[in-house]
């Protein structure tokens, strides 16, 4: 990946919390428009990894860079790329309303006005005119407010720790839409989750933390390809290669199917099809559907 697009870079990062070596020699990059998932057992250091990006904790060894600039003590709030984060439970001033809480935060850097705050609150399905204090909110409402807090200033980097915790089905659908928008806008996203479905759905790459070290689980997200052929036997031939093929509606009268795989681009896909002797009318990459 082009280095300039790497918005987050961990270089030989180690971190000890108390007597426990939580992270050991971590190397990781997250590019613009990419979603990286971090999985692992409880207490393995997933949240610690996210907190290192925010600058709220500092590595013992190694370096964390945000948009090419090292995260150092005192640099918080002055990082070149803005960071939006929802780490652990959402934390708000309990006696104030959701809008008041987010307005206080927005007033700090004044990148957005109250209207933008209201739109962010509406985006997560909450009512910005709800004057009830946050202490009366349900878990799901607080989680939604936490997501609104993370996205409202249109950050370059998003850090999510169990983002759909407490969300109902409607909330999860809203979150899917938000993820799609953020990735399309070029945000680099790091997501921690115990939910396999969530990780599979959203993440391009997935890593596991085990004994303080990072292990790749999935290096590349499968892409979906719409393959349009002259006849059904070509599609059958693709299926016989052991690939996952889903027959779809005909396109311009031609048989078509969607195939998932690790081909990086159209040329690679076309090469493969030629190799196996399949003649195509067209091959198109299909957008990942988060829903």
């Amino acid at each position, binding site marked *: 990946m082009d280095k300039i697009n790497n918005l987050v870079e961990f270089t030989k990062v180690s971190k000890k919390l108390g007597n426990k070596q939580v992270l050991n020699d971590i190397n990781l990059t997250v590019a613009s428009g990419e979603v990286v998932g971090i999985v692992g057992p409880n207490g393995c250091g997933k949240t610690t990894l996210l907190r290192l990006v*925010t600058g709220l904790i500092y590595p013992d060894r190694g370096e964390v860079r945000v948009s090419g600039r090292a995260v150092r003590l*005192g640099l918080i709030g002055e990082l070149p790329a803005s960071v939006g984060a929802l780490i652990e439970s959402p934390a708000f001033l309990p006696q*104030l309303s959701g809008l008041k809480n987010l307005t206080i935060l927005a007033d700090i850097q004044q990148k957005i006005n109250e209207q933008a705050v209201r739109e962010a609150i509406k985006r997560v399905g909450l009512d910005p005119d709800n004057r009830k204090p946050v202490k009366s909110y349900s878990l799901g409402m607080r989680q939604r407010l936490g997501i609104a807090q993370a996205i409202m200033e249109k950050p370059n980097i998003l850090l999510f720790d169990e983002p759909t915790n407490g969300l109902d089905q409607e909330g999860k659908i809203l979150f899917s839409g938000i993820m799609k928008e953020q990735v399309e806008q070029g945000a680099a996203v790091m997501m921690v989750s115990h939910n396999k479905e969530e990780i599979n759905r959203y993440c391009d790459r997935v890593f596991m933390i085990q004994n303080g070290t990072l292990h790749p689980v999935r290096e590349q997200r499968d892409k979906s390809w719409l393959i349009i052929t002259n006849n059904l036997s070509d599609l059958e031939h693709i299926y016989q290669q052991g690939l996952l093929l889903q027959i779809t509606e005909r396109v311009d009268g031609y048989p078509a199917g969607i195939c998932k795989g690790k081909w990086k681009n159209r040329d690679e896909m076309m090469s493969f099809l030629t190799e196996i002797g399949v003649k195509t009318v067209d091959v198109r990459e299909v957008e990942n559907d988060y829903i």
Partner: protein
Amino acid sequence: MLTKITKMEIRRAFFRRQALVAFLIMSAFFIQGFEAYRPGPLVPVTANHNFYFAFLYAHGNGASGLLPLVFALIVSLAAGDSLAWDKKSGFIQYVLMRTSYKTYIVGKMVSASVVSFVFVFISELFCFVLAAIQFPNISDINKIHSSFIPKYAGSLFIDHPFLYILLIIFNSALSAVFISMVSVFVSTTVKNIYIVVATPWLLFILLHFVLYSINLTRYAPLDLVGAYILNHFSYRTLEIPFIWIVLSIVFYTLTYFFFARNFKARVYNG
């Protein structure tokens, strides 16, 4: 960035219910003092009886003026617990992702100082107006018995009694800055809101009794917010504001140091 943080904090402090509650409590204690000062129906009204003295009496100058006993608590309630709430709720992490820790703590200290100063100044001015409505003006200042003239900056009282009241209010407002700083200082290590709000008040009372018991009464805190006006120490005019300014500076420094130390420890040790 510091100006933005400070403005945000000031807006946040003034528009919460606690500030209103603190204002009502302060007004209630002034009204209590006015009622204690009010002469009985058979007592003739003389030049010694006027709204300036009513205000000073309620302010703590009089035997039944109870305001000094609760003054520190009122100020802490209005302006001292913002940092504690940020830490207790976890909101501080969202703030610290948007600004540096130095800007944050300086903003907190400046805003607590401004809020406490303005809160006390406006509240006491309001209470002075209440006194002016209820009690007569000085008919002839030369007819006031010398024992009633304040010991503290007495000549200012004789020449310009309203300016004198402003001086007293100014001194109170400066003491409020110190009190709010004590609360913010306590908040650097303690998250319990009750402890943060109560500490300056308990400190005032405890220190007052300790200093009285060892015969160092000149700087007893409860006197420095009320009885200094008439007591026998004859403080110089600038002595009282100087004391509060120096104490505030000491606590500014301590607060910054402790917050920075705790923050760095947390950043490095998690």
